């Protein structure tokens, strides 16, 4: 009897012929290499909500947080799950930076890229009471500060730290970069005037902006953001000038995308590409983008791979200039 069972199942497993479209056969796990409540986690849970609300997948979605070692834990898990078509991982630039900073044997080329969902901007924030009108004022003050001016961000040798390093290089100044465990924490420290500035993502600091505790100076992007709806003081995200226009020539954006483990079939990859394409078109997704002021930039297939290659090169250059590469 049991042998029949096994045989039937084996036949079933083998019977997924390459011609037929692949469908998941059990719950899909989304691994979030950051802790619950963070920006990546919110993105994963928003996608989970959208997929379940619109019935986009025949199987339930589970979000699993694996935040240890700066996200390396989650990435190692995906590395080990090669060939498992029921696992996905949310990624940020950490997919290049974690291996570079820790020398762990990880490489995004061992994973299967699914789609890039958006890009996240970085904004230079100061306390609402600070006298600086633009980035130039801040840099001028930083030149004369001893001990060096304190700038807060998330984690060490990651995105925020790179931006602060680039600011030092561009302005010929020295900052004290203070790493925090989350952007929210950095934002609170800014509101309490324990740091002079932060380089938080829009979503990480919006609460304090609206509450009148902090305000943005400029955005580290080549173009201004597009969301015109007023956020605070009658200003919108689109009103924030670029840092370049204020004489601080630093630009940086971070990808937010989805990967699968390596060694999955083309059909399995195609299934998830289709799934996330649908997610990216849902109205709730658009709301989420607007709320978090993410740059809508959906890419899959070759466009995504080309982007990843260029982005990796850029990070390798930045990381080695900043001396963040593990020896």
């Amino acid at each position, binding site marked *: 009897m049991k042998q029949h069972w*096994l045989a039937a*199942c084996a036949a079933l497993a083998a019977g997924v012929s390459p011609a037929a479209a692949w469908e998941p*056969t059990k*719950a899909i796990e989304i691994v979030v290499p950051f802790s619950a409540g963070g920006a990546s986690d919110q993105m994963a849970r928003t996608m989970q909500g959208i997929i379940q609300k619109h019935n986009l997948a025949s199987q339930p979605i*589970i979000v699993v947080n694996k935040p240890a070692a700066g996200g390396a834990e989650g990435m190692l898990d995906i590395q080990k799950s090669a060939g498992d078509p029921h696992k996905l991982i949310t990624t940020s630039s950490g997919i290049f930076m974690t291996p570079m900073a820790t020398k762990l044997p990880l490489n995004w080329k061992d994973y299967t890229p699914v789609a890039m969902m958006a890009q996240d901007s970085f904004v230079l924030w100061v306390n609402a009471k600070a006298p600086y009108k633009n980035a130039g004022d801040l840099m001028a003050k930083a030149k004369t500060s001893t001990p060096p001016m304190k700038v807060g961000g998330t984690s060490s040798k990651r995105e925020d730290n790179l931006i602060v390093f680039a600011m030092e290089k561009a302005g010929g100044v020295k900052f004290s970069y203070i790493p925090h465990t989350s952007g929210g924490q950095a934002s609170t420290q800014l509101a309490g005037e324990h740091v002079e500035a932060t380089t938080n993502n829009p979503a990480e600091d919006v609460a304090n902006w609206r509450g009148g505790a902090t305000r943005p100076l400029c955005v580290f992007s080549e173009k201004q953001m597009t969301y015109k709806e007023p956020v605070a003081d009658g200003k919108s995200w689109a009103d924030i000038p670029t840092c370049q226009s204020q004489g601080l020539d630093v630009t940086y954006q971070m990808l937010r995308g989805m990967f699968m483990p390596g060694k999955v079939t083309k059909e399995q990859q195609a299934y998830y590409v289709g799934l996330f394409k649908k997610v990216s078109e849902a109205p709730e997704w658009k709301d989420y983008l607007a709320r978090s002021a993410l740059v809508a930039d959906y890419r899959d297939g070759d466009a995504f791979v080309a982007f990843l290659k260029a982005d990796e090169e850029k990070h390798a250059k930045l990381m080695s200039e900043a001396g963040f590469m593990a020896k």
Partner: protein
Amino acid sequence: MSSPDEAEAPEPGIARRPVEVATAAILIGLAGLVLWDSYGRGAGWDGGPQNGFFPARVGWLFLAAALFILFQSFRSENQVFVTWRQLAQVVRVLGPLVLFVALIAPLGLYVAAAIFIVVFMGVIATARWWSILLTAVLVPLACFWIFELQFRVPLPKGPLEAALGY
């Protein structure tokens, strides 16, 4: 926090002193490992403590405490750490437990749990065989229902679950 000492029992067993000495020796070894690792990465002060600074300082304290414990252990009076009879009881629980953990990877948690219950209750041998079997079937099933189906927490699964389509 302290365990009941039954010093009056003259039962044979493992003496306390060798265990104290061995524990202290292991702690000293750990302290050495910490110090070696911390100084390897830099345990100095470079505009603020380096990342090995605290582990190294704590490591020295740890080493000092462990050395003192080692010294103490030679002076303390020798008692019985655990009698052979007690040790046998502990092994009867620890043995099946180790087997259980070892079986999780190849067989999955649920099957390993069933085997663990059978072995554990069998070794202790106070229950009827049918109640052992019933527990061995019901407990993993209940766990499966709670964790896998209700809370959607994936636990390690083996060939049996795969054959059933999970």
